[in-house]
């Protein structure tokens, strides 16, 4: 016990026994006086002025203790007083605090999704989020805090799609209105029915897994209500320890395990995902002197992830289909090939969104990070310098799945994609060969120095300079290869070489070691300048401006897509049938008369990190007491952004693509280059009201205009990437959000005093209303053509555009979101003139509202909280993006909506 706290000691002594207490108290007073005198006379370690100023010493030692354990007096609700008056008084030795909670939602509380069929029970939905937190001030210097949270979601989906009818599956297309041509004769099948004997044996085996329609809508004739399951458990623990006034330690550990079951538009073609993320953090700070402060941090994180097809482990499944030339690595690779039928739901397609294409995907990532920072204050300067180094590992990374094959049925031969499938005549067949496993390493580091200089009360100036060394990931295996020379249109002669080999050196790739794909960009110097001006001499009105140059290194995704995934280690073969006559047979698609192409993945070895210039100007103003307005303009210009360049592409024309490629010995080249750029202009306004009079508000409006030529799919014309420059598709243009809390001032002693109601008043007290409201524009998108109309081997073909395509708001509906007639098929073997991102998806309006009742149970802070939350409270149908494939029956139609209103009830006990 610290004897500098006289009242505590005195009162404790009094509590022990009257006599002993008085003796101890007298001693305490004497000791305290001595201590105080000593403190006043000696050098004080807290701040220098104390050394020479007794009044400062008395300020330093001013303390208020209201701790019943120390004092021994428990005659009034001391803890209540302490917590109301002084938040820090709750930090007493041995005090425990925490909470236990459960949040529950289920379908009985929820509204119907816009696309849920009327008259049917809603898809099952159960969601439980539960947890507990527990903390204890073990000693006055040690604080321990831990949490556990569990999440269990079982949510029925509402996924609409178009599937073939039972008649179509038998070959009978007589009710469809589509004339099915016999590719052998070029004439229609008799009665528009494919003879049963002509249905391909592979198709017969696959048809078993294809569902029949379950809806009457001819376009959206199948609904999948299978549940998506998300289970997760999270545990975290944290320790704060104060060694001394100068030295402090923070340590934390967290782990999260999640298991998901995902669904596809078609049942039985889903996938599973397991993730386990762990992190450990240690940070230590030490003050050498009041103007020299150091901090060190050590962090380690590990992420293990495994996504598998729902058929993983089904030994022999792929082989049983009877498609020759497909070979998987192990049982985790099992599953169906990807069959894409134009105009129908894909079979096992749509990887990532629940489909099986692209699976299995595994990854074990480790990241060790060490940082150090020194803060040195001298006069009006505040210098910061330090550095950080990371050790990044990616192990057993697999991104394959193409080993099971991918087959496109575009309807070129019969007039219908599904009819092509029944006959077993794909337009293209693709397969992956070899192992796609990657084990990668990287060791980036950074050094920086910064100065904040306060020139006078009105001007502050800041400047910093950082150096970033960020090498590209390097493979642990000798499995990185290039096509050399790598130019955008490969010459007729060229060869694939392995980096680090003698041959690579001979061909000019000196210094590129084994397993290395890209030379390290060593010029990443990042300067930053900032200025703040306070015309009133305080922060009521502040203008800020800054300019910075930063670098954005190539991300892991690019590394994974290019390291160890090239011939001869792993490669993708593609066979394509001429449109005039089907040459591929589903039984043996890679060994038919059509030779296969070898697809090359590549990255420009001299690619540099993206260079980003950003500038902003902002104004912060306290317009009234508690009301703050901030208006800001942010600009950003990014150059050398990475983008994928489709190369070795045939010019549009008749005949097989392979023969028309610049280098017909290879297929398509996907080359990562730094040819993309972006310009960003954002106007942002924020109005905030701090909590006063029981009301607080945060509102934000932003207007984003971002233009870029970065593409995340195939371009319309790979030789004219300037035509891809458009408004960016990721961010909504205008967005308004409101975030508010209203502690209703009702109850005893409140503005609306209910004391007159007596005990009934308890029911009306402690209510809180809070919510998040968001209005935002739709996101840009553009129509595309089905298949590869211009026959150049690149699938991002766009149609011709003869009008804006924009429908007046009052005329938009789920069956016609834009003017489909404004888009036409371009001349065959030519590029369409429609631009990129020329239309907008439906906007979003969301109101999430909570009503909370918090009831204090005891004077020492125990409380019970009951909560009713409504997500999308007004059940606005936030429609999904319209289907945009020109030439299909679904063109311009919308098939889904975001979540309808969900109601959550929650109970929480705090202590």
């Amino acid at each position, binding site marked *: 016990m610290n004897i500098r706290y006289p009242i505590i000691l005195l009162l404790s002594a009094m509590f022990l026994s009257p006599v002993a207490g008085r003796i101890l108290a007298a001693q305490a007073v004497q000791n305290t006086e001595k201590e105080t005198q000593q403190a006043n006379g000696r050098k004080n370690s807290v701040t220098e002025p104390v050394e020479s100023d007794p009044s400062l010493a008395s300020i330093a030692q001013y303390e208020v203790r209201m701790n019943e354990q120390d004092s021994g007096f428990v005659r009034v609700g001391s803890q209540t007083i*302490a917590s109301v008056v*002084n938040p820090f008084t709750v930090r007493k030795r041995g005090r425990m605090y925490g909470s236990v909670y459960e949040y529950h939602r289920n379908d009985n509380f929820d509204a119907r999704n816009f696309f849920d069929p009327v008259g049917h029970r809603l898809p099952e939905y159960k969601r439980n989020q539960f*947890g507990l937190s527990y903390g204890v001030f073990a000693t006055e210097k040690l604080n321990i805090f831990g949490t556990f949270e569990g*999440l269990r*979601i079982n949510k029925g989906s509402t996924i609409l799609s178009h599937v073939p009818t039972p008649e179509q599956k038998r070959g009978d297309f007589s009710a469809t209105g589509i004339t099915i041509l016999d590719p052998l004769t070029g004439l229609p099948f008799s009665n528009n029915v494919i003879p049963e004997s002509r249905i391909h044996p592979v198709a017969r085996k696959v048809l078993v897994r294809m569902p029949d329609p379950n809806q009457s809508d001819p376009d959206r004739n199948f609904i999948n209500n299978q549940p998506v399951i998300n289970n997760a458990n*999270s545990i975290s623990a944290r320790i704060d320890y104060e060694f001394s006034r100068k030295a402090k330690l923070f340590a934390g550990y967290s782990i999260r395990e999640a298991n998901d079951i995902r669904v596809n538009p078609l049942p039985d073609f889903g996938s599973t995902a397991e993730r386990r993320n762990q992190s450990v953090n240690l940070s230590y700070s030490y003050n050498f002197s009041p103007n020299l402060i150091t901090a060190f941090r050590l962090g380690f994180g590990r992420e293990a992830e495994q996504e598998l097809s729902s058929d993983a482990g089904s030994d022999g499944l792929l082989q049983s289909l009877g498609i020759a030339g497909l070979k998987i690595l192990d049982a985790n690779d099992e599953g169906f090939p990807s069959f894409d039928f134009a105009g129908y739901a894909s079979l096992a397609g749509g990887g990532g969104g629940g489909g099986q294409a692209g699976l299995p995907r595994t990854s074990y990532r480790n990241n060790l990070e060490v940082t150090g920072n020194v803060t040195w204050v001298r006069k009006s300067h505040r210098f910061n310098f330090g550095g950080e180094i990371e050790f990044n590992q990616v192990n057993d990374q697999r991104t394959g799945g193409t080993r099971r094959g991918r087959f496109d049925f575009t309807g070129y031969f019969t007039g219908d994609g599904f009819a092509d499938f029944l006959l077993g005549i794909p337009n293209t067949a693709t397969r992956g060969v070899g192992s796609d496993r990657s084990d990668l390493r990287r060791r980036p580091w950074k050094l920086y120095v910064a100065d904040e200089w306060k020139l006078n009360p009105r001007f502050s100036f800041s400047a910093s300079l950082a150096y970033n060394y960020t090498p590209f990931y390097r493979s642990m295996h000798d499995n990185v290869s290039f096509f050399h020379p790598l130019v955008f249109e490969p010459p007729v002669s060229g060869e694939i070489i392995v980096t680090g080999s003698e041959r690579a050196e001979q061909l000019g790739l000196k210094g590129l070691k084994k397993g290395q794909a890209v030379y390290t960009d060593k010029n990443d110097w990042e300067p930053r300048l900032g200025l703040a001006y306070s015309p009133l001499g305080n922060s009521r009105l502040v203008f800020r401006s800054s300019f910075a140059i930063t670098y954005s290194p190539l991300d892991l995704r690019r590394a994974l897509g290019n390291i160890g995934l090239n011939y001869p280690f792993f490669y993708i073969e593609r066979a394509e049938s001429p449109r005039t006559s089907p040459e591929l047979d589903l039984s043996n698609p890679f060994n038919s008369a059509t030779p296969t192409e070898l697809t090359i993945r590549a990255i420009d070895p001299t690619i540099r990190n993206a260079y980003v210039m950003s500038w902003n100007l902002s104004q912060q103003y306290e317009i009234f007491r508690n009301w703050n307005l901030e208006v800001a303009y942010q600009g950003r210009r990014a150059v050398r952004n990475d983008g994928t360049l489709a190369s070795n592409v045939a010019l549009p024309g008749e005949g097989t693509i392979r023969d028309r490629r610049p280098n017909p010995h290879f297929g398509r080249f996907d080359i990562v280059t730094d040819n993309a750029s972006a310009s960003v202009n954002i106007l942002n306004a924020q109005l905030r009201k*701090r909590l006063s009079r029981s*009301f607080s508000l945060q509102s934000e409006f932003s207007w984003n205009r971002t233009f870029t030529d970065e593409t995340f799919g195939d371009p319309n014309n790979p030789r004219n990437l300037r035509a891809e420059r458009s408004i960016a598709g990721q961010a909504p243009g205008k967005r308004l959000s409101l975030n508010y809390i209203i502690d209703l001032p009702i109850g005893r002693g409140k503005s609306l005093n209910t004391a007159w109601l007596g005990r009934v008043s308890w029911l009306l007290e402690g209510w809180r209303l809070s919510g998040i409201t968001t209005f935002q524009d739709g996101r840009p998108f553009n129509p595309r053509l089905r298949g590869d109309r211009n026959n150049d081997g690149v699938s991002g073909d766009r149609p011709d555009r003869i009008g804006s395509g924009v429908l007046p708001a009052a005329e938009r509906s789920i069956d016609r979101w834009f003017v489909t007639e404004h888009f036409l098929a371009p001349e065959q073997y030519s590029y369409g003139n429609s631009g990129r991102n020329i239309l907008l998806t439906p906007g979003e309006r969301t109101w999430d509202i909570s009503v*909370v009742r918090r009831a204090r149970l005891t004077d020492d802070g125990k409380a019970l909280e009951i909560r009713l*939350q409504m997500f999308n409270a007004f059940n606005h149908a936030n429609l999904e993006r319209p289907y945009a494939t020109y030439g299909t029956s679904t063109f311009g139609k919308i098939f889904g909506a975001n979540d309808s209103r969900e109601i959550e009830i929650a109970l929480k006990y705090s202590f």
Partner: protein
Amino acid sequence: MSLSIATLLFTSILAAGAAEIPTEEPFWKWPLEKAVQVLNSSAWARQETFTRVVGGVGSGVSGEKEIYNTFYVRFLSARPIREAFVRIQQLQHNYESFTEEEKRRFDGLTQPNLEMDTSRWVVVTVAFRSNDPNEESSVRRYLQAQTRETLKTRAFLSTQRFPQVEIAAYFPPREEGVGAKFVFPRELGGIPLVTGNGDKITFELTDVPGANPRLRSTFSLKAMVVNGKIIL
């Protein structure tokens, strides 16, 4: 929610009155509510509460969805604040039931705090509480780690005459309860920091970690006048 209901609700909230300041009654007669009011909402004390609502699946920390970060800003150099602290102590220990001898001893121990010499200094205390344990830990570590030197460009008192008065001393929060103590000179170049001319005094603390990096708390000097004299 209809517009009329919303209007009624907002009007009701805005109609809530500010707290009154006890000045006439001697502090040893204050009831608990009055002492608490002086410490939390008076001419010398304010609570600055920053809020945000967290959304999305699994949002919030230990079940919290509405995050409240409250800074308690008080002028410890003002005698009413110290009186309120002493009164709380008295109430907590049931001072009224003490014998005369116990009262004398108790007063003897609380008197130094009450009579703390602040003739040369204006002392602002800042305490913090959040219902988000991570935010609380983060701000606590921040306040613990600061020194006068590091706060020279971050913590200020401002008056009409003196914008951004530099901090003279800083004492990090202890486990007791007053919070971090920011000490400013009462005079600059022989000129009093506070005169009858200015009508406001503002405490500013910037670069605080978390979602609300700027604390700015403005007090009315007129409200601090007791018996014709500014009590600060």
